[in-house]
């Protein structure tokens, strides 16, 4: 595996190019007219298989009973609903693509989750959404973490259907919020979503995306800051099988000084036309002096016929920063690693499983939520057992 750029190179090259108007300054608007139906040539849509979106971008209300919703953990933090424009709805998220605008438009009642100031939740809260086959759904969730609160919110997607979902996050000053989004859809589901967080002064925000299932899953996970000292960590883990398209788009907008961001996404691909896309956009604005950012994407390609696109993109408008770097690598199994394990008697199949397990374990360890770590380890084992076993690679 090769690291494509180290911090210094990235800064140097980014400073060399003249600043041009780019897609890192998207048109943000609630008005659907500002987000016409894409043709596929747009920068933000060029990787997405539009034909397979099954009406996700059509301007039509969702179906009734398209989504079964269960509450995870203490339901008392789900405090009500919010109409468009009703604070804090709109405080963080203004749609910058059509899917997000549609989810706003067709979800007149946003679910409002509020963790009061200073509250420290030991158990995760959240929602489990189960989509019904052949039905379209829209959802908008607003998660508000009060100042100095600490909580974990889990959004668990499963089932089938076509889903457009917005998650709007407001992390109060000094708060510590983790949002986990699990995409454990059935093989025919379509999911387009935007998760937008505004991170308060000295607050900590962690966003963990796990995608194992779905036909097309496209998530845009964005972060900007409400003041200096905010720290965002965006972690992702995905495993795409034959025919699946998983697209993870990240955008960190360093719009405040001394903020931090760390993005690590790891994925495995196997089977005919398994496709993953990772777009890591980081914008360091002129005011963002003293910031620190690092983003990394690694893909392990297990069979022929898969494609992993990995596009880190760092745009730097000030040189007065602590550090900025990115790494991106897509590799196959390392023959030397497999040889080493096999020379200790471990079968070829088991060796592949060990290497893959290790590849993800690095990331899983970073999550810091023991229960989720265990679940993920089991889920990875499951994928591996299901897919690596019995397949001569």
């Amino acid at each position, binding site marked *: 595996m090769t690291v494509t750029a180290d911090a210094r190179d990235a800064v140097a090259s980014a400073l060399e190019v003249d600043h041009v108007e780019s897609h890192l300054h998207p048109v943000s608007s609630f008005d659907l007219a500002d987000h016409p139906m894409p043709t596929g040539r747009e920068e933000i849509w060029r990787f997405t298989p539009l034909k397979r979106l099954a009406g996700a971008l059509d301007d039509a209300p969702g179906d009734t009973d398209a989504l079964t919703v269960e509450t995870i953990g203490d339901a008392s933090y789900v405090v009500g609903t919010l109409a468009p424009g009703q604070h804090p709805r709109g405080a963080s998220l203004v749609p910058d693509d059509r899917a997000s605008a549609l989810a706003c438009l067709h979800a007149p009642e946003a679910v409002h989750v509020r963790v009061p100031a200073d509250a420290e939740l030991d158990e995760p809260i959240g929602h489990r959404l189960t989509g019904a086959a052949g039905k379209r759904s829209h959802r908008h969730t607003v998660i508000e973490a009060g100042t100095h609160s600490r909580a974990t919110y889990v959004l668990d997607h499963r089932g089938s259907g076509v889903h457009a979902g917005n998650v709007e996050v407001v992390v109060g000053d000094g708060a510590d919020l983790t949002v986990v989004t699990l995409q454990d859809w059935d093989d025919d589901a379509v999911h387009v979503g935007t998760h937008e967080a505004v991170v308060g002064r000295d607050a900590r925000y962690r966003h963990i995306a796990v995608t194992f299932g779905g036909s097309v899953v496209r998530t845009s996970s964005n972060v900007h800051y409400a003041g200096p000292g905010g720290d965002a960590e965006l972690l992702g883990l995905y495993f795409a099988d034959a025919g699946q398209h998983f697209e993870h788009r990240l955008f960190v907008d360093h719009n405040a000084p001394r903020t931090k961001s760390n993005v690590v996404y790891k994925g495995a691909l196997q089977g005919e036309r398994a496709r993953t896309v990772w777009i890591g956009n980081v914008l360091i604005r002129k005011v963002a002096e003293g910031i620190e950012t690092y983003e990394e994407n690694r893909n392990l390609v297990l069979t022929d016929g898969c494609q992993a696109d990995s596009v880190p993109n760092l745009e730097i408008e000030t040189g007065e920063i602590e550090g900025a770097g990115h790494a991106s690598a897509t590799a196959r199994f390392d023959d030397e*690693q497999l040889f080493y394990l096999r*020379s200790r008697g471990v079968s070829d199949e088991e060796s592949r499983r060990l290497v893959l397990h290790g590849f993800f374990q690095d990331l899983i360890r970073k999550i810091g939520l023991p229960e989720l770590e265990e679940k993920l380890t089991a889920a990875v084992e499951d994928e591996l057992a299901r897919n690596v076993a019995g397949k001569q690679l």
Partner: protein
Amino acid sequence: MSTLQITDLQVSVDTEDGPKEILKGVTLTIDSGETHAIMGPNGSGKSTLAYSIAGHPKYTITGGSVTLDGEDVLAMSVDERARAGLFLAMQYPVEVPGVSVANFLRTAKTAIDGEAPKLRTWVKDVNGALEKLNLDSSFSARSVNEGFSGGEKKRHEIAQLELLDPKVAILDETDSGLDIDALKVVSEGVNRFREREGKGVLLITHYTRILRYIQPDRVHVFVDGKVAESGGPELADKLEAEGYESYLSVAP
């Protein structure tokens, strides 16, 4: 009783300009209870011999045979060779990120024995093996070879040797890069293995230094892909005094 028999082994590697012959007919027999030292200059093919016996896919066998107790080693897959009783301590052990030493050792032991080791004694065995090689028990939780110093990697190889308990061990420059204290610790590990019943050792080295701690029964001088001379331990003393020059000057 076990015998590793290498007969007229010829090996080549693929290069950009086609196959390149590296081993040009190697014949060696290591009987149980014997330690053979192979000494030779850089690039003479020592690692090639070790890797070829272990089954590294980079090398193509173009002639000859290798048998372990009469079984055709070259017909076995890499992991079958290990399960048959061969062990290679590598010159450059490989890092496996995210796989803990504990997980790795347990998986390997289970594969070799055909059943999982008894949990209670196993943890003790692992900690004991690490401790004897001056590796802190915290190594169990670390990723295999990742961030290990050169010396730690070599000691980890010998800890595996003791735990996996093969019939024949091939040690490829396990001594290089070790300071004198680590060399003693590693040699003691190899000697503990040798004391077990019927074990064979093929010790590949560049320097005579390790032979002061591990007494070989036979010494072979390896030059240009072949054994140039074989003898008793006294041959090592001759090499110590004279180096490889006399062999190199006669080589074409």
